[in-house]
């Protein structure tokens, strides 16, 4: 081999190995939500900018939770990025399971993340997951049915107004239910709704000594009000309805009002899917005059498990996916209504986005949620529709099962609350609280 050829071969080899060391393939576990699926479609843009390839593992929400929890708690190393929520982030951050996101680039502008989101995704002031999209909850209602009932929805309704309006809009002969709410068992389904609602009634899960509070009047008032209103004006079998069941009912024109995730606004106003797309109005989640509204706060966020060998590439991906540029990219291709909402302050200052019908109410809902002070009386936990402690998911699933049984008429509200108090007390004592 001549010297020149040898030099060419050595140069080529160096380039190949250098390129190989730089370009990584990262594996991302995510949930099958519209915004996440849309992001997968733009992966080529990330690859073109960084050279890194992405392998997606898309799972149903409960399967995803089980899968990523198993992996991170055993240090399995299957994923370089995990999609997690506000419940997991502070717990896993405290355990040292996540890489702190405290060194993101200046261009990324971490200060632009909505403060409520950054607060819920941090532990002791350090951000451990970057919000991809955030949501609160609000009232979505049929403007035509409201008008027909001779009522006007205020921007910030009370629970008594909602109940009255629900009764007025109910038309059983035409299969129209005044109100559709989650009653399905599960801490992230009916459990999330009733917990957020209970905050506005002055209830709380635990007092400052971590004692269960289901034997108090505010909880009794919450459940009695919910069941009474739903029995009067809710759909048949509401005890088994979750987000998707209510979405389907609302889109078919069978609900006068629906109080649920702000992200649903884009579904119910989409004329391809919704038969009532042009007659939907929005309002803040109701309150009871006690200073706390019944809206929750949630974010699907991207986090890096500690110990991954591809930390740098993973950080590059998170910066790309949760950046202002990504929002611009989606807006340019699919319109402003389809950009991931609820994560960045600048989005709500953008004049293009302000024209979207539900944008203003989504931001107001997010801003009115305070995960650090979720209840009327003080609590020792963080979280609005959950308490960010490892034991909560298991306890809340059982409690919500008892509540669903009460909605279905299998037991009384008093029996459900007594069982919830007993099982929560037992579980907290066993956990050493």
């Amino acid at each position, binding site marked *: 081999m001549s010297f020149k050829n040898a030099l060419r071969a050595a140069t080529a080899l160096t380039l190949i190995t250098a390129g190989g060391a730089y370009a990584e393939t990262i594996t991302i576990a995510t949930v099958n*939500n*519209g915004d996440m699926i849309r992001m997968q479609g733009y992966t080529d843009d990330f690859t073109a900018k960084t050279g890194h390839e992405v392998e997606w*593992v898309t*799972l*149903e929400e409960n399967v995803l939770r089980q899968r990523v929890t198993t992996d991170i708690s*055993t240090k399995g190393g299957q994923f370089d990025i995990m999609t997690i929520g506000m419940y997991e982030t502070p717990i896993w951050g405290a355990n040292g399971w996540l890489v702190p996101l405290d060194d993101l680039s200046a261009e990324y502008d971490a200060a632009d993340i909505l403060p409520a989101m950054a607060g819920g995704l941090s532990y002791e002031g350090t951000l451990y997951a970057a919000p991809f999209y955030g949501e609160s909850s609000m009232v979505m209602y049929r403007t035509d049915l409201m008008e027909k009932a001779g009522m006007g929805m205020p921007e910030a309704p009370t629970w008594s107004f909602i109940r009255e309006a629900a009764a007025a809009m109910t038309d059983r002969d035409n299969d129209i239910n005044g109100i559709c709410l989650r009653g399905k068992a599960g801490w992230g389904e009916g459990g999330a709704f009733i917990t957020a609602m209970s905050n506005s009634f002055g209830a709380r899960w635990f007092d400052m000594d971590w004692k269960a509070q289901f034997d108090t009047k505010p909880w009794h008032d919450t459940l009695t009000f919910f069941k009474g209103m739903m029995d009067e004006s809710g759909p048949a079998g509401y005890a088994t309805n979750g987000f998707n069941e209510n979405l389907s009912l609302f*889109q078919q024109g069978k609900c006068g009002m629906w109080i649920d995730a702000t992200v649903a606004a884009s579904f119910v106003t989409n004329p*391809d899917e919704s038969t009532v797309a042009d007659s939907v109005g929005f309002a803040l989640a109701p309150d009871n005059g006690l200073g706390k509204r019944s809206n929750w706060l949630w974010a699907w966020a991207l986090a890096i498990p500690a110990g991954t060998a591809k930390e740098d590439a993973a950080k590059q991906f998170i910066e790309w996916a949760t950046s202002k540029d990504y929002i611009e990219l989606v807006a340019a291709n699919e319109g402003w209504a389809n950009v991931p909402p609820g994560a960045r302050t600048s989005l709500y200052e953008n004049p293009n986005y302000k024209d979207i019908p539900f944008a203003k109410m989504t931001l107001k809902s997010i801003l009115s949620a305070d995960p650090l002070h979720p209840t009327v009386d003080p609590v020792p936990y963080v979280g609005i529709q959950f308490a960010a402690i490892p034991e909560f998911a298991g306890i809340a699933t059982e409690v919500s099962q008892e509540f669903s049984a009460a909605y279905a008429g299998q037991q009384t509200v008093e029996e459900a609350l007594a069982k919830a108090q007993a099982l929560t007390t037992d579980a907290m004592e066993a956990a050493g609280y």
Partner: protein
Amino acid sequence: MARAVTPRRKALNTFAAWLIGLIIFFPILWIFVLSFKTEGNAILPPLDVLRAPWTFESYGIVQDRSDYFKHFGNSVILAFGSTLLGLIIAVPAAWAMAFVPGKRTKDILMWMLSTKMLPAVGVLYPIYLMFIKLGLLDSRIGLVIVLMLINLPIIVWMLYTYFREIPGEILEAARMDGATLREEILYVLTPMALPGMASTVLLNVILAWNEAFWTLNLTAAKAAPLTAFIASYSSPEGLFYAKLSAASVMAIAPILIMGWFSQKQLVRGLTFGAVK
């Protein structure tokens, strides 16, 4: 003596059989129907769903979004690999239990079956930790071994049942003619037990194909089979019935076609020795 069946009774029996068959098959039929509807139409009341226009839209979306053939390839490898490995271990085991039974053979058979009664999630963490140590997470070989192990009791039991129907004298005659143990199993026993072995293979391929707990928990991107492909289309926020149905049809179609063509063999194998 055969019992006389009146035409009326025969018609009733036929009607009942069709009705039960339809009830059992209805969920699959409905998945098939929904897979040809748009998401908006898939949530309508049943009669409106049937009246709504038929479309391939969901299949197109699923095809665009997921790598079907990668998942299909993994399913084939896992289903047939685990069944083949299971047969290699189970044939000698079943032979020994059927033709050279010991005092504890029945106990061993019952113990093997009892492992099927353990909830899988109870051993998830130990197996997950073993897989981490052995570097088997998200690998096809790791899943082939796990699927083989969970189906092994069924394979051994089925083969044991079939082998017991074969007269031991025939094997003795082969031995007297100078056949080695390997030749006895390969050239004498196997051809006679072929219908039973075929149904064992078919049943275990179906079980391995449909297995969802381990295949979801031990895989990520590389070894994920069609069960993971289906799981990726269930959504907590948003409509997904049509896409999930299309993904399900694509996942079950190969095994359904295989089962359709081999149903005679399957039934013959499963009822082998049931009536004497």
